[in-house]
């Protein structure tokens, strides 16, 4: 908060819709001035990435602007008190899906970014910090637009006890709702827990376990759970196939 900041790296705040373009401007300005050796890192939430900011991000990615983009995804507009976003999952209750829960699936943002032909995209979870650390470290060494997605459980928005934050993030991966992977120059690789589930050939846990732990899924129907279980199973098979045919 002006005039004091908690962030001890140079940082500009920009309007929501402009994160990708603002990062572009920093890259272009630094290049024009011949200032080298500075990594530009853009940071936005799921609202700023999936929804209001997708245009400027897509434009920057298509132009292969040289920066790392981190999407901090807590699956809703939490800054304004939990309204649905393009990343809110099917069946989740929010401020703008208050009775029925969200009727649509999450947008697959990482796949959208992959389709831009980026040199590096990765999915992460706040519950797997070492995996996140490794991916950011790797991203730093690569040139071009790099996209890192982080699922970050949100206790007040998802309605679970604060102390369960890490557990909920782990459950998301253990059930296959979140899959940890990276795609470097088109080569797909499962990582961390997703990789160990795949290599050990163990079963994913039923998605129901994930839903049962969160108040936001209080109105999810049996049909929706079945539908999501099928979706997860199919998607997991697809990822396993990609991992083995990389």
């Amino acid at each position: 908060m002006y005039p004091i900041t908690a962030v001890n790296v140079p940082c500009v705040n920009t309007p929501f819709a402009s994160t990708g373009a603002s990062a572009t401007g920093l890259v272009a300005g630094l290049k024009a001035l011949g200032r080298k050796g500075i990594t530009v890192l853009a940071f936005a939430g799921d609202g700023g990435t999936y929804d209001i900011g997708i245009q400027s991000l897509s434009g920057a990615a298509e132009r292969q602007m040289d920066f790392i983009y981190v999407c901090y995804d807590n699956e809703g507009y939490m800054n304004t008190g939990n309204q649905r976003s393009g990343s809110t999952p099917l069946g989740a209750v929010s401020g703008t899906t208050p009775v029925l829960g969200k009727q649509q699936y999450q947008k697959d943002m990482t796949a959208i970014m992959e389709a831009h032909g980026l040199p590096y995209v990765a999915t992460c979870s706040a519950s797997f910090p070492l995996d996140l650390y490794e991916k950011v470290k790797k991203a730093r060494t690569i040139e071009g637009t790099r996209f890192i997605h982080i699922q970050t459980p949100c206790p007040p928005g998802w309605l679970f006890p604060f102390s369960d934050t890490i557990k909920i993030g782990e459950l998301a991966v253990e059930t296959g709702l979140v899959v940890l992977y990276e795609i470097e120059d088109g080569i797909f690789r499962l990582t961390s827990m997703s990789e160990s589930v795949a290599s050990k050939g163990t079963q994913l846990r039923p998605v129901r376990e994930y839903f049962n732990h969160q108040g936001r899924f209080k109105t999810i129907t049996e049909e929706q759970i079945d539908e999501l279980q099928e979706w997860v199973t199919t998607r997991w098979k697809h990822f396993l196939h990609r991992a083995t045919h990389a």
Partner: protein
Amino acid sequence: MGTRECNHICDESSPGIGEAGSTGEWRTNMPVIDETKCTASKLNKPTCFLCWLYCPEAVMTKGIPPSINLLYCKGCGICAQVCPVQAITMAPEKKNL
């Protein structure tokens, strides 16, 4: 004395301690470390530190034993949850008793 003396023509902020959000009065539970259980303390070497790794407020230090900056600790209890040897318990704030 007016604000002109700050010489800012736009919103220009400098890094400073205290801006990460001190907790204030609302915390209901605080973490307490049992040194007899803490792995780093028992082995007397810098190890484990999962509490440090997972703390979302970064209030844990990698000390032996780890110490907690209670000024910023929100009392979320994540450290207690991730501790593999249950060395951290959440104790009610004294002022709330």
